[in-house]
């Protein structure tokens, strides 16, 4: 993997995300950053219908008409951006057109991607590994992709020579611990687990304590899926967070909400209520290899200013990428 230029370039981007030293230089002269748009597409493990014919139609136009704006609004809504975020985007682009900065479909496509990218990530995303150990708490609704994301993150960290401990704090779902154990093995991380039904807080505490004792660089805690409206389960999560802070003052250093790209407007409620409960630091969008565009992340960013840290693009160990706002906006909205 690290042998070829491709893998190396990817690892460099991971090192940037984690604020870690880049991997040692290879003998082969590496080609520098390729086209941003190309990268996300290429990395998608499966062929993806990147663009709906509808959107392609808008951007093929040589003229901007009033229909263009209606169609654009609809395209954004169809991508799950939600009414508010969609209207706000259209307004800003219309203003640019009024100033004569957008005159055809292609320029519109570019401007849209620029707007979204600037909104969502004025700076490259960060998930700094800077503590001894850095603790990452992973949360989300049922089935969003938490466990898989934990495994993939551990893999990337291990590739950058980080010692990783994973805490199996989903003690509720059937065989959740077994599932995580497979990911721990695949990524070479050590797993801290207790019996099914054990107190998730106790597992989280154990994991952090064990991470400290073993001199781990990173501790990642997987939690049980829960709907954001389940008060008792959200309280439980609050407690888990508190326990982690007790085990290591200041931890967790990152609290990530894992969000399925197919999620519609309920994603806003998810982000809001998880944020209220445990103060989120970022979002992970999973399943971007599917047909959904994950536009809800745009809406979430607009209302909560929560940055996207990484995105999931498949079910394999490697199918995770640092969030690249331009590539994301491009892959979602532009026709090429």
């Amino acid at each position, binding site marked *: 993997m690290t042998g070829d230029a491709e893998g190396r370039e990817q690892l460099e981007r991971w090192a940037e995300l984690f604020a870690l030293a880049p991997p040692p230089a290879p003998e082969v002269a590496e080609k520098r950053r390729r086209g941003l748009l190309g990268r996300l597409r290429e990395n998608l493990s*499966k*062929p*993806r*219908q990147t663009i709906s014919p509808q959107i392609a139609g808008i951007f093929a136009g040589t003229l901007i008409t009033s229909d263009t704006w209606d169609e654009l609004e*609809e395209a954004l*809504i*169809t*991508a*799950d951006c*939600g*009414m508010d975020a969609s209207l706000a985007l259209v307004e800003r682009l219309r203003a640019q057109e009024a100033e004569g900065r957008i005159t055809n479909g292609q320029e519109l496509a570019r401007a849209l991607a620029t707007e979204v990218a600037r909104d969502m990530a004025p700076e490259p995303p960060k998930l700094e590994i800077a503590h001894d150990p850095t603790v990452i708490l992973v949360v989300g*609704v*049922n*089935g*969003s*992709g938490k466990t898989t994301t934990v495994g993939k993150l551990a893999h990337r960290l291990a590739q950058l020579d980080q010692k990783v401990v994973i805490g199996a704090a989903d003690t*509720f*779902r*059937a*065989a*959740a611990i*077994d*599932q995580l*154990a*497979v*990911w721990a093995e695949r990524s070479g991380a050590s797993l801290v687990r207790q019996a099914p039904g054990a107190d998730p807080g106790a597992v989280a505490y154990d994991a952090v304590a064990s991470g400290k004792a073993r001199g781990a660089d990173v501790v990642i805690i997987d939690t049980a899926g829960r*709907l*954001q*409206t*389940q*008060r*008792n389960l959200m309280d439980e999560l609050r407690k888990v967070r508190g326990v982690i802070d007790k085990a290591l003052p200041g931890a967790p250093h990152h609290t990530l909400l894992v969000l*399925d790209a*197919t*999620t*519609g*407007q*309920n*994603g*806003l*409620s998810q982000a*809001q209520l998880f944020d209220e409960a445990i103060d989120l630091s970022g979002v992970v969008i999973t*399943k971007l*290899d*599917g*047909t*959904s*565009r994950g*536009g*809800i992340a745009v809406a979430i960013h607009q209302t909560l200013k929560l940055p996207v840290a990484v995105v999931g693009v498949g*079910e394999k160990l490697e199918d995770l990428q640092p969030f690249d706002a331009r590539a994301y906006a491009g892959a979602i909205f532009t026709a090429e």
Partner: protein
Amino acid sequence: MFDALSDKLQGVFAGLKARGKLTEADIDKAMRAIRLSLLEADVSLPVVKQLTKAISERAHGSDVMTSLTPDQQVVKIVNEELTRLMGESSVGMPMSPRPPTIVLMAGLQGSGKTTCCAKLARHYQQQGRAPMMIACDVHRPAAAQQLAVLGEQIGVPVYKEDGGTDAVAIATRGVAQARAAARDLVIVDTAGRIVIDEAMMAELVQVRDAVSPTAVVLVLDAMTGQDSVNVASAFQEAVNFDGVVLTKLDGDARGGAALSVRAVTGRPIFFVGMGEKVDALEPFHPDRMASRILGMGDVLSLIEKAEQTVDVDDAKDLQKKMTSGQMTLEDFLVQMKQVRKMGPLGQLLGMVPGFKALAKGQDVQVDEGRLDRIEAIIHSMTPHERRRPDVINGSRRRRIAIGSGTTVQEVNQLLSQFQQMKKLMKRMGKGGFPSLPTA
């Protein structure tokens, strides 16, 4: 999170009534409100367009324009159109006249297939069938193990092959074993897949062809957004599913995806998932789903739940006691347990129209822990104390607090609240209007 459509329409029509007559422009405004409301509920855009067109035609042709309550008229039309689109009544999952009935589960990753298998198995087991489940998800780590654990929980056998990689072979052998064991319902769990993964879609088709299912069920997450239409069409094209189970409806998702899938594929929704536990499966009611999508509460479900759990004679008895001021803490305990049996109180209150709006879109929060403590306190009293709370003096209070793991303060609080409640009830019984509690 979102305003109910009725609130929105009230806003649109407010002030217009004074003018006495609605104009075309007013109706257009109402249609925009409907469009927004449906999109917020994740109804997919093509379906929204189709619906607003039908609604607008009816609104123009009807007496909405001259009505005194145009907002209610419009809500009624919208509700009817939605219900019609959703299918008129609830449809059961087909069962084969010649057992075994074979059910194939399909869906995206994380939609809830495995849990759903167990829920279906348990549901039909309770109706006297002998289910068996087959674990054909060879892709997600520990998926087969998850099904095995669930099977054990509900006492339903599971066929799985450790280290197996061929879903088609496992399905075939599993069904053969189910037949040999004379099981009359076979539920085949499969891996989640994205619809553009051709190899994975082909695998699903092969599994279907190998087991010839009585029904193919699409498992759909209620939180799905605009993509629901693509997903449903792709699964319909590949395996021609017969119906849908809508999962995770216990949250605050409006579930517009259900409407979209129904509209685009014509397939009914068999069941809805209402929680993580294996018994959280309920039949689907189109009319209730319609009001949910419109954010108008779900009174019918509430009434049905109450009918299922509350004994009518008991209730009458209790009412008599309440209004004559003879209610005891024992009666109170029984009543509280009955209400709680209907489900988490927050969920129940969420079904009351307007309640979500009152709670500002937040889920209605009920402190279930506090209710647990109240139950514990009453449990720690002697029968005599429950009937005559006035005998509970200081030392008894301490004993009760220790016995229930609570504090004397909490015991005091419960006793004084109970007294207040009794007074209030008695006054209501005498026909006096209860004054609002001040503290």
